[in-house]
């Protein structure tokens, strides 16, 4: 932290003060740095406040959304839908958002997908939700991206957002056997974990071994349900992601404010010490000047 702010000192100020002790910046330089760090702290503190408010809302909404996600994924579990071996194509949906400064939220999602892509980049297509995952994956794996969505994370996600995404996945015409939604599951204010939700295509579900436990299913019901459950799962993942993001940003900004306090303390100390040194030097100059008369 200390070293990072060292570069803010203007070079001119250092060269003119060669006579001074090494490492002792001028009073002016220190006060400029002090001011800038204080401003940074103000910014991080207010960002923390904003994300705390957003987090409260996101958590409240997440509680309401959890049953939707659980319900949608229960179907795949109960029917024992498994990824088909004859269709190797897979789909990964990266749930991130447009905004940074929130810890490793976006990188951990991107890392999980990157690891899969490094194993096999022929049969995997990626959908990037949010600018951050697109920026992280776009450069190296641009070939694998079907579409990217942005303008996410400014407002709390709505079901309409999820519907648009699910619709775009279906409309893209990409024939995948199985897929995964990669998102950050919110655990508590201080922790989240990157997890995946399975999604499957119509043909995969139709060939599931235990589908018969569900009564009166015809193809159209299954197709409608698959479409709807994709939207529900995306909606749930968006909510989890939004909540994790806000809580993570809160923690990150809290840490940033703490670090800024530390830097301010050190700078204040250095400032006072330098000021004292200047006063002492001036006194010595006056006294020795007076005694020379």
């Amino acid at each position, binding site marked *: 932290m200390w070293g990072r702010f060292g570069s803010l000192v203007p070079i001119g100020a250092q060269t003119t003060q060669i006579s001074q002790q090494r490492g002792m910046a001028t009073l002016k330089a220190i006060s400029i740095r002090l001011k800038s760090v204080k401003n940074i702290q103000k910014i991080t503190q207010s960002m923390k406040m904003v994300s705390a408010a957003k987090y409260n809302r996101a958590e409240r909404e997440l509680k309401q959304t959890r049953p939707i996600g659980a319900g949608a994924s229960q179907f795949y579990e109960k029917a024992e839908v498994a990824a088909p071996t004859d269709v190797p194509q897979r789909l990964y949906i990266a749930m991130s958002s447009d905004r940074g400064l929130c810890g490793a939220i976006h990188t951990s999602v991107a890392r999980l997908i990157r690891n899969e892509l490094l194993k096999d980049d022929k049969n995997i297509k990626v959908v990037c939700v949010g600018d951050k995952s697109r920026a992280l994956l776009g450069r190296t794996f641009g070939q694998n991206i079907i*579409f990217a969505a942005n*303008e996410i994370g400014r407002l709390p996600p709505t079901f309409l*957002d999820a*519907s648009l995404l699910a619709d775009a996945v279906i409309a893209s015409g990409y024939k995948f056997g199985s897929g995964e939604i990669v998102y950050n599951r919110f655990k508590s204010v201080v922790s989240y974990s990157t997890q995946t939700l399975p999604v499957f295509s119509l043909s995969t579900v139709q060939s599931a071994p235990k589908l018969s436990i569900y009564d009166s299913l015809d193809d*159209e019901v299954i197709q409608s349900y698959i479409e709807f459950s994709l939207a529900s799962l995306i909606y749930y993942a968006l909510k989890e992601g939004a909540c994790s993001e806000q809580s993570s940003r809160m923690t990150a900004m809290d840490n940033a404010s703490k670090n800024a306090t530390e830097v301010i303390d050190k700078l204040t100390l250095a400032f006072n010490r330098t000021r004292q040194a200047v006063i002492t030097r001036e006194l010595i100059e006056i006294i020795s000047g007076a005694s020379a008369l």
Partner: protein
Amino acid sequence: MSAWRAAGLNYINYSNIAAKILRQALKTDVRAEAAKRDSTTVKITKWVDGKPIKNVE
């Protein structure tokens, strides 16, 4: 095949249209709250051969 699917809609479009109509039919005191859920900001950009394609719309 149901009429809406024959018209080229999938279940997501169909249920969203139904939800929209339902929201409009609500009483005024709850309609404003429900209308907040009736918005989306998401923009989708297609990628072909590793490059994003500009949306015409």
